[in-house]
């Protein structure tokens, strides 16, 4: 086993480019996922049964199937139905956003349910509508509570985004694969790829800790 350190040095810029793409996909997907998740999470608590059922179906389908299969469905199967080719970047973002949305929906639902029922009643008795109470009273409190699980979701997405390598989309894992296909330096490259992922996830978890602490101090008034 000879360790080719030079290979790491030579491949590092390429891998970093891939890492940039990984961060981009994860941030966009969790961003869209937040939007989807917030509305689906509230829909799951709706009293209208069609809304509730649809939201539940979406969450169950996404959480009950592997992300890899979802990516294949969107990239290779959907074009046959639509009759229109899907760009790999769009496919990757769509698959990851839809996937993230289902998980975020559950986080939101739990967060909203964790707020005391009295808060909603108080809002309503002040003459606010259900939507107003949600927007001005419940969601801000819920949001504070769900920062840690959202941070976890971002970290999970960052790691899971490696799956979009299967559609030839060049994020960090794919870059590693491509370099190994050319140089066969699997040990050196996978070690470096793992290290880059670790740096990214570690940074995010520190950031989440910081946000959590900042919001905690707000409560001390």
């Amino acid at each position, binding site marked *: 086993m000879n360790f080719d350190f030079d290979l790491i040095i030579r491949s590092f810029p390429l891998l970093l480019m891939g890492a940039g793409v990984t961060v981009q996909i994860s941030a966009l997907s969790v961003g869209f996922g937040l939007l989807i998740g917030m509305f689906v999470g509230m829909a799951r608590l709706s009293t209208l049964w069609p809304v509730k059922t649809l939201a539940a179906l979406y969450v169950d389908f996404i959480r009950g199937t592997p992300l890899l299969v979802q990516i294949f469905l969107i990239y290779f199967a959907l074009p046959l139905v639509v009759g229109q080719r899907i760009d790999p970047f769009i496919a990757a973002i769509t698959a990851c956003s839809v996937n993230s949305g289902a998980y975020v929906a559950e986080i939101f639902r739990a967060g909203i349910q964790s707020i005391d029922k009295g808060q909603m009643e108080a809002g309503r008795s002040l003459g606010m509508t259900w939507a107003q109470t949600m927007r001005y009273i419940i969601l801000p409190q819920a949001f504070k509570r769900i920062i840690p699980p959202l941070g976890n979701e971002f970290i999970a997405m960052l790691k899971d985004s490696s799956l979009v390598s299967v559609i030839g989309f060049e994020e960090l894992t794919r870059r590693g694969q491509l370099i190994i296909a050319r140089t*066969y330096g699997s040990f050196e490259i996978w070690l470096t790829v793992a290290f880059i992922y670790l740096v990214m996830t570690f940074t995010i978890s520190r950031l989440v800790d910081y946000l959590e602490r900042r919001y905690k101090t707000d409560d001390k008034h």
Partner: protein
Amino acid sequence: MSKKLIALSVLVIFVMALGLAGCGQSSKPAEQPKAAVLKVGSDTAFAPFEFQDEKSKEYVGFDMDLIKAIGKQLGMEVQVQSMNFDGLIPALEAGNIDATISAMTITEERAKKVNFTKPYYKSGLSMVVKADNNTLQSFKDLEGKSIAVQIGTTGSEEAKKIKDAKIREFNTAPEAFMELKAGGVDAVVNDLPVNEYYIAQAGGKDAKIVGEPLTSEDYGIATSKKSTELVDKLNTALDELKKNGEYEKIYVKWFGKKPPQ
């Protein structure tokens, strides 16, 4: 209380570690000599060389029949392990498999990493375009076009040499063909027999092969650099199969013609 807990957990971990270490030693060599196993890696999505049969769920194809015949010659039991093409050489180096038979072209670059047997099949690279495409006639026309290839293959290397071409790399050959069908690329560059098989089986309406084969390539069985013993054995078996007509039988079965002399 907590001290007791810590002591207890240390003890538990210690016992588990002991148990694991024990497991390592207790695996005695089997008493009766079993047939030696030859672990062979293959990218089993590469018809007609290796693919999964619809009915029997077995891996079949020219390579599979050949390696089974070789195993019979050597009195070894062949176990096929399916993996992605670009993972084959790393798996050989890591010792996860003993050999690979996967329509792998013998190249200088690869020969630095693994030992190859004598060539067992003559091939070359060809290009596939959409059936209604009449502007792309040969490899020269691919300049500035987008091409789907399979990661780690000679097709991918050759495609990268084409001026201004946009290369999209996929894990398996079928995925590259799907990309062409969906209109994501202008052409696929891959091994001629695989392209021919795709056109014959599935892609006849959608795609066609154009131009002359770009290269002349030889496929070889690869083994680890660590020992030359296995390569010698495989070569002997190959020679024997070519002599006794078994090789020709397998060749005719999969390609419908006799091997070139």
